[in-house]
């Protein structure tokens, strides 16, 4: 990471800490904001959060490792999460799964080479009456068939 980038990130975290407060109860909100923008929370970002909130970096890391929507490793620009719960499974999740993997040339858990998309599984999205469902970043798509799923993935940058 360049020094300039580091400085920019530090400034950004500082403004987040100012916005949400230095109290421990603000930690998750701050991490979510970093995650939203950078798609992961780097070691440096974790250390900066810890320093500014006056807690041990291990505490920050342990919170990140607990929540499945927070990552400490770099991910793609878009995170696509396919629901793997039984209701979506019964409505044809496997077909979507196969089509998406074939189209992108990666398997679930991987990121495309151009860093455009990371594929993940997720548990129940609360769309069991309209499955199969998937989340693209925070947006939810329902009643998917392989073709619409691919079209959605092709439309994101």
């Amino acid at each position, binding site marked *: 990471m360049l020094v300039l980038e580091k400085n920019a990130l530090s400034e950004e975290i500082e403004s987040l800490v100012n916005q949400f407060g230095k*109290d*421990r*109860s*603000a*930690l*998750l*909100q701050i*991490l*979510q904001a970093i*995650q939203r923008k950078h798609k992961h929370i780097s070691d440096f970002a974790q250390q900066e959060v810890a320093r500014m909130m006056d807690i041990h970096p291990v505490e920050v890391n*342990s*919170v990140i490792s*607990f*929540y*499945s*929507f*927070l990552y400490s490793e770099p991910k793609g620009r878009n995170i696509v999460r396919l629901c*793997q*719960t*039984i*209701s979506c*499974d*019964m409505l044809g999740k496997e077909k979507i799964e196969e089509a998406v993997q074939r189209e992108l040339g990666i398997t679930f858990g991987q990121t495309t080479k151009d860093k455009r998309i990371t594929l993940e599984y*997720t*548990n*129940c*999205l*609360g*769309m*069991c*009456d*309209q*499955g199969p469902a998937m*989340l693209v970043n*925070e*947006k*939810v*798509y*329902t009643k998917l068939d392989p073709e619409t799923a691919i079209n959605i993935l092709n439309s994101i940058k």
Partner: protein
Amino acid sequence: MESIKTLNKKRSGPVLFSEYKQGEGVKKALEMGRENILFELKGSGLKGRGGAGFPTATKWMLSAASNSDKKFIVCNADEGEPGTFKDRVLLLEYPELVFEGMIIAGYTIGAKNGILYLRGEYEYMLKSLEDYLELLRKDNLLGINILGKKDFNFDINIRLGSGAYVCGEETALIESLEGYRGEPRNRPPYPVNTGYLGHPTVVNNVETLASVPHILIKGGDWFRKHGTDKSTGSKLFSVSGDCEKPGVYELSWGTSINELLELVEAKNTKAVQVGGASGTCLPKSQFHRVLGYEDVATGGSIMIFNESRNMLKVLKNFMKFFVEESCGQCTPCRIGNTKLLEAVEKIENDDFTFLYINNLKELGRTMQVASKCGLGQSSPNSFISILENFKDEIFGSKGKGRKNG
């Protein structure tokens, strides 16, 4: 995608989906005063709708009685149980009920702050919910001296989860709000005394809070008319799986599984999983049983499986879910779920003895008593009920659950 603005309210039902005008509930509550609210609520017999079924009036009374300068109302919108989506419908189509329930709770126990803990998967609702809160502020249903009531100040903010099923457990949810890993706490102390940041906190399910305005307007006795003696009122059921009409249904407690199946036009039904992955799986012979705290208790998830489904595959899906979502804090749940999943895989590969299976059922029963929170206490339910209720399919001579079967 659904959004608050474009949706016409076409639903109808006995309680939650009945007529309601925004602001009515709060207005009535302020006229009634704290004691009468608690009295009406107690009379209604309303119990927690998340699944555990704790009497709501008792929870409110306990925290109303606690002495503290700060109290909190938390709305648990961390709906993560597989097959549950009723809170999605309430939050998108009936936000007024949920928020007014929170305001009334705040008034009753003397809290100034409300927090809606919205699961990370529902982040797409955040904008419309925030907009709705803004409208409530404009109408003085939130803010200072609400509806002219001197010294009644209350506001709500929304906090997001980050994809952890266990945070639906109330103490784990509080840990998460406090910026920690969402690991359940030992109870007691209960949140009604020692909750968020150590202050008395009421944590209620979305559906529980949404029932409150209706109860105050129409009365506890009216609420009691629906349902049964021990399970008063109505319940939202999230129906999915093999049926013609999946979706959210509001039905009186005491409805039988058979009646429900008919309503949603399910055919050739082999099994009904009641209460999500942590619930029980009922075979045909038990479809006469009724939904309610006295018979089949549930948070509302109903998953329907027809004759073509492989129950062992269903069970494997559930056990994988619990292995992923166990927080790992206590051993019975962390190791137990892994062992149960291993057993399902062994049955699949036809590599087991009945001694081994019986030992694992015993392990399941140990988990039910030894786990720290509801997750580990209820995760063996589907393992035990599926292996017992569908043993012919899984272990019988035609066992299609097995590879070589």
